[in-house]
């Protein structure tokens, strides 16, 4: 490994450094992707910018009905946070599905988003929560809807001079229920073959609103709009769930790769949705 190591003391200093570096600089958060990529020679940044101690990027808070999670919050800390356990249990479930205790202790939500893998485990839950991604540079701050953040496999709209500083989403209504279901080769240390997250708001017996996101079945995480539309206004019963299951399988656009075949993934997308909805009954 060959690079220069820098550890700026403040966010401002980090942003200045990044702006001056002109792209040849990799922020280091938990290091669970970056250090693997460097060791495998997949990337070779001139500078590694250690942002892992920027405390201002480690908060989890709710303000005026909005929940904000700092980019450097680790999966382990997110999963243990009372606020998220109470109000965003599906995100907690997705954090607990990542890697192993060691990877969850180091790996961050911000790092998971910047990697922009279609199988990144926190991404479907954040789609379902309707999250926004906060990007900061010396020239300003912008918030991008999570569905506009990703542009392809491992690609996002983040500019090299920007840091992802936070993830924000409206606090779900108290009656809202969600889930994250992942299918991997094994329970721990497994990348998703397919995953489904959903957040369902009900009024009485009927579904008022539902947001469904599918992971690992397209170049980016995708929504399942036709299934969402079908479920809206309906009562969750076995027939409705069966219909949603096949609609959802039809919306999955999986490919065949070494982890799984396209047809299996599409069918499993439907099944993982159905299982999650059954648990809400």
């Amino acid at each position, binding site marked *: 490994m060959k690079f*220069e*190591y820098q550890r700026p003391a403040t966010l401002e200093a980090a942003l200045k450094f990044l702006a001056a570096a002109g792209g040849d600089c990799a922020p280091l958060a938990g290091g669970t992707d970056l*250090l*693997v990529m460097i060791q495998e020679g997949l990337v070779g940044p001139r500078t590694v910018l250690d942002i892992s101690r920027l405390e201002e990027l480690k908060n989890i808070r709710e303000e005026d009905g909005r929940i904000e999670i700092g980019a450097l919050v680790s999966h382990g800390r997110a999963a243990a946070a009372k606020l998220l356990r109470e109000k965003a249990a599906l995100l907690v479930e997705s954090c607990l599905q990542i890697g192993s*205790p*060691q990877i969850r202790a*180091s790996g961050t939500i911000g790092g998971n988003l910047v990697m922009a893998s279609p199988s990144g485990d926190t991404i479907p839950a954040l789609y379902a929560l309707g999250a926004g991604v906060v990007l900061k540079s010396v020239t300003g701050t912008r918030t991008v809807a999570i569905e506009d953040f990703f542009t392809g496999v491992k690609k996002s709209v983040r500019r090299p001079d920007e840091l992802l500083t936070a993830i924000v989403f409206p606090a779900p209504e108290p009656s809202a229920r969600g889930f994250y279901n992942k299918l991997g080769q094994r329970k*721990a*240390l497994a990348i998703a073959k397919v995953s489904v997250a959903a957040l369902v708001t009900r009024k009485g017996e009927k579904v008022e609103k539902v947001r469904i996101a599918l992971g690992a079945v397209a170049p980016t995480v995708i929504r399942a709009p036709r299934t969402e539309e079908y479920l809206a206004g309906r009562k969750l019963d076995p027939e409705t769930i069966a219909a949603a299951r096949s609609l959802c399988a039809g919306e999955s656009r999986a490919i065949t790769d070494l982890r799984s075949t396209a047809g299996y993934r599409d069918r499993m997308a439907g099944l993982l949705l159905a299982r999650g909805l059954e648990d809400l009954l």
Partner: protein
Amino acid sequence: MNEIAIRFILNGKEVSVKAPPTFTLLRLLRERLGLTGAKAGCERGECGACTVILDGEPVTACLVLAPQVEGRRVETIEGIGNGEELHPLQQAFIDESAAQCGYCIPGMIMAAKALLDRDPGPSREEIKTGLSGNLCRCTGYTKIIKAVEVVAGKSRKGSESC
């Protein structure tokens, strides 16, 4: 490559050591500090053989850069007994014959210690989750889990007796 001085608390004692900033914590421990308990298995975060405890949390030392530990607390397998007696986890691994070749064991014990430090009486399922980042090619895990259960059982609140 320029070397830099890295100061941190290692097993309760302050140390200062020089290393290139591109070193991983694993290499720092093994090659500069002579602590070869943490093992290099995959060096990709997958096997857990290099697990140490950093500020109370289990981490894979192969995915931490040496300069990242500046000013922080690192615990390794070498520091968990008191020099005279073994740590209860080490004793339980011996009593339960939980080690075969032994390569995975320092990482297993450090992952288990991180779990028990946080929750002294975890359930069997919680122990399995706590060790899910550690691979063992020899034992089949049963005796390893048993050894951790023995230590956890001593703190478990009445779960075994009723």
